[in-house]
């Protein structure tokens, strides 16, 4: 990213190829609106191009990118007056394949897992997605969310506990 900032714009293609799918899934897992998620990804990279000079070399690219990603979401929510909500139905239709039995005994299928994820509060879902899928360190998440590492640690742990709880609730229905 430092090279991009210093004028080697073509290097941004590399960053795009490396991160755009993960970024897209960051949005999809939170709201599951695929068209909107694509627009968000597009907007994030547009902002990266536009505000490349604001990137400070000492930080990592990922926290910076997710910082922009969150702002895109917030701006959208402000503009349309609502928060992006998790769309369970879309996930039901697409991800209903059963997990092989030998993988994890307790987990019957991905659909139920997605439903459980959807039940999480947005704050818990976000930290779980960031730490599990975006592979961000707690310190980076803490910096991104503007809280302490301890808070992130507790929130991830609680998110996973809630996920288990919701999963068995759904399984029992």
């Amino acid at each position: 990213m430092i090279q991009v900032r210093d004028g080697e714009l073509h290097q941004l293609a590399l960053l795009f190829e490396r991160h755009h799918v993960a970024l897209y899934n960051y949005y999809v897992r939170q709201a599951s609106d695929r068209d909107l998620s694509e627009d968000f990804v597009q907007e994030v990279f547009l902002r990266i191009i536009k505000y490349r000079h604001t990137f400070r070399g000492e930080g990592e690219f990922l926290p910076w990118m997710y910082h922009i990603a969150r702002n895109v979401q917030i701006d959208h929510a402000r503009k349309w007056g609502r928060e992006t909500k998790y769309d369970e139905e879309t996930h039901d239709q697409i991800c209903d394949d059963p997990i092989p039995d030998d993988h994890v005994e307790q987990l019957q299928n991905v659909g139920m897992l997605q439903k459980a994820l959807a039940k999480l509060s947005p704050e818990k879902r976000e930290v779980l997605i960031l730490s599990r899928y975006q592979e961000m360190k707690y310190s980076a998440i803490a910096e991104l969310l503007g809280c302490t590492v301890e808070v992130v640690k507790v929130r991830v742990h609680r998110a996973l506990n809630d996920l288990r709880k919701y999963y068995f609730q759904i399984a029992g229905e």
Partner: protein
Amino acid sequence: MNNNHVKEFLLEYINKNLDNQTEKSVRLHLASCETCRKECESLSNWWSALEQLPNEKPSEAVREKFYKVLQKEIEAQQQLKTYGYQKPKRSWFEFLFPQPVAGRLAFALVILVLGGLIGSLIKQEPKSAPIDDKTELTQLHEEVKLMNRLLTVSLLQQQSASERLKGISQSYRSEGSDPEITVALLQALKYDPNVNVRLAALDALSRNLNQTDVKQELFETLPKQESPLVQLTFIDLMVQHREKSSVDIFRQMLKNPGMNKSVKQRIEQGILELNS
């Protein structure tokens, strides 16, 4: 280390994010605590299970749009580099006056300088203009004077008495005294066959009575005039102008035996008036 503490560290333990010392403590605790061991196993399973959520791919349109925008940006950057519009650092002038403002300011300055130049050029011209104008005006004046003279003289030479009268009227248009017109008028007074023309000429000449030569000419001409009307007008004119020198001429005229009676009386009365 109690269970709560371990639970807090379990996820990091699973993800191998703990420092050596803490990791060792957790490992020791897990070896002795079955509850924590089970919890750790469960969390680990769930953490792995989350991996099962499909990683979806966005449509190709996202990539296409991104590369389009990137290409545009790269081209724009190239252009900036080629034409040197983009400067790495802004000078204090650019800081105070951003590009558009600086451009406008420069334009205004150019217009101001141009205006000043044009103004100074225009201002220089009047210096020579009065001379030119004066010359031109004098020339024009002379031309008008000449035209007037020519017209007067030419009209006075016409066959028709009314045309000659027009000529005399024309003579009034000349400012001051034009010697040639005066000569023409004297000629008309002396030799014109028409009394009206002679009378008009006398009237016109009365404007030049202050000129000695004109007055002299009139004194010489009057005794020769046969028309009593002209004689009477002349006498009235002299009396009106209090020309005492005309008394001698009057007396000379009185000696003329064929003198009109009325004229004779007017002369006598005039002599008395002039002498009084």
